[in-house]
């Protein structure tokens, strides 16, 4: 169980912002922090990891005090036993794939976990490759494997999949889910991708302007008609028969137009019809 209460004045592009949050995360859960950029998601993660010092509050993890402003206790990142995956991967360029993962282990720790992790993350064939020769998705896998090599009970992920293309993203989400279950982790993911959150997490916490607005399941959160639940697109062209070609994310879809005729370039919302099962 992780319970925390954090207060911190953040200096954002729009000026100062007061971050004030508290939450409890049960052991073994997959929690997503959702919110716009600049809402304070990454700062919360960094405070949990010990990279950033809160102004006030506490962090308790499984009855151990990691941070307590009133008792002036502040555990160093080295002693917090967390795995952290950075947005920019933070892989060590002077080491190859295997060496990056191996670096996490102490001298007397067994080495067989490295081979296991290489296999779980699909990196076995790339073990001796230099970091610079890997694709973004492959680098992210190394970062993930390295973060859990010491078998930390908690995994913190800072938008790990934001710079990766869709296909690779799907595969990495599967890997992430498998790792979360296999190593019985408590995982906190920072993300602003509803699809990712729905697929991976048990709980979503909505962060807005430095405050937790809502804590619920992803299904309930995204069903309630929030911005993320809508399907929107832009009209590319309209033909004579009244069909519009709409660009939705990176797909083109031809759809019949309702009575009020929109024009090319208009932003439109699409409501879904009947579902058809794919064979």
């Amino acid at each position, binding site marked *: 169980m992780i319970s925390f209460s954090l207060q911190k004045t953040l200096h954002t592009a729009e000026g100062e912002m007061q971050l004030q949050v508290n939450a409890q995360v049960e052991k073994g859960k997959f929690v997503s922090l959702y919110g716009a950029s600049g809402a304070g998601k990454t700062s919360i993660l960094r405070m949990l990891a010990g990279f950033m010092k809160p102004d006030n509050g506490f962090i308790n993890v499984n009855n151990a005090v990691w941070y307590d402003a009133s008792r002036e206790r502040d555990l160093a*990142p080295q*002693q917090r036993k967390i795995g952290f995956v950075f947005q920019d991967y933070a892989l*060590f360029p002077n080491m190859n794939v295997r060496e990056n993962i191996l*670096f996490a282990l102490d001298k007397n720790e067994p080495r067989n976990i490295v081979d296991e992790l290489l296999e779980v993350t699909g990196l076995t064939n790339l073990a001796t490759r230099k970091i610079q020769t890997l694709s973004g998705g492959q680098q992210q896998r190394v970062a993930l494997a390295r973060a859990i090599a010491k078998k930390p009970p908690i995994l913190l992920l800072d938008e790990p999949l934001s710079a990766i293309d869709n296909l690779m993203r799907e595969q990495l989400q599967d890997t992430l889910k498998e790792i979360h279950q296999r190593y019985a982790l408590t995982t906190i993911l920072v993300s602003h991708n509803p699809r990712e959150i729905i697929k991976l997490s048990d709980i979503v916490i909505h962060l807005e302007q430095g405050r937790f607005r809502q804590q619920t399941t992803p299904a309930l959160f995204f069903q309630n008609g929030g911005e993320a639940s809508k399907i929107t697109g832009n009209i590319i062209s309209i033909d004579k028969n009244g069909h519009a070609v709409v660009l939705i994310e990176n797909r083109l879809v031809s759809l019949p137009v309702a009575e009020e005729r929109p024009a090319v370039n208009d932003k439109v919302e699409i409501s879904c019809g009947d579902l058809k099962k794919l064979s």
Partner: protein
Amino acid sequence: MIELAPLWLTLKLALSTTLILFIIAVPLANWLTGDKNIFKVIVQAIVSMPLVLPPTVIGFYLLLAFSPGNAFGKWLEEWFNIRLVFSFSGLLIASVIYSLPFMVHPIHSGLSSLSPSLKEASYSLGKTKWQTLMKVLLPNIKPSLLTAIVLTFAHTVGEFGVVLMIGGNMPGKTRTASIAIYDEVDAYHYYNANVYAGILLALSFVILLILYTFNRKMQQAKFY
């Protein structure tokens, strides 16, 4: 007759200065990197002073400080029986101070160019600050380290003003190659001056050639 002693002395001075400065500069540059506070800014300004001050000014103040007629020099002589003026040790200390920015700046800018997440990643994997510095940070700034070492060495070889102020011109003790050139020209021994100057010129060129060849190779290997 060309004496080799000034060349050996120059080599000895440059090597010792480089070694001492490397040991001092790595932790200093590492400390300067990261969160800035006013204290660090002051230290940074002090480290950079030799870049803008005339060497004779540094030499003059060090001469005053080391002189047995003044408090610090007197204290050194009374307590440790050391006299730094007109001695190799004095020359070495002056060189270390004078070449400090040439060692600190390249290492500092190398460390600053690394993503802060490298350090944090290492910490979150349980590694100490020292382990992080030795195994993650320094290996990823090898070209900066080489630049720092080469610049410091070359700069010490070319020192003149500070050496003259602190060391004077004592054969075998404080007469370095650059002093010897001045001395030979002063005595109209142009041939001797030419030999010393030619050797220094060739040495500087070879050092820079090695530096750029190595850095080019590193870049091609995309090591960092």
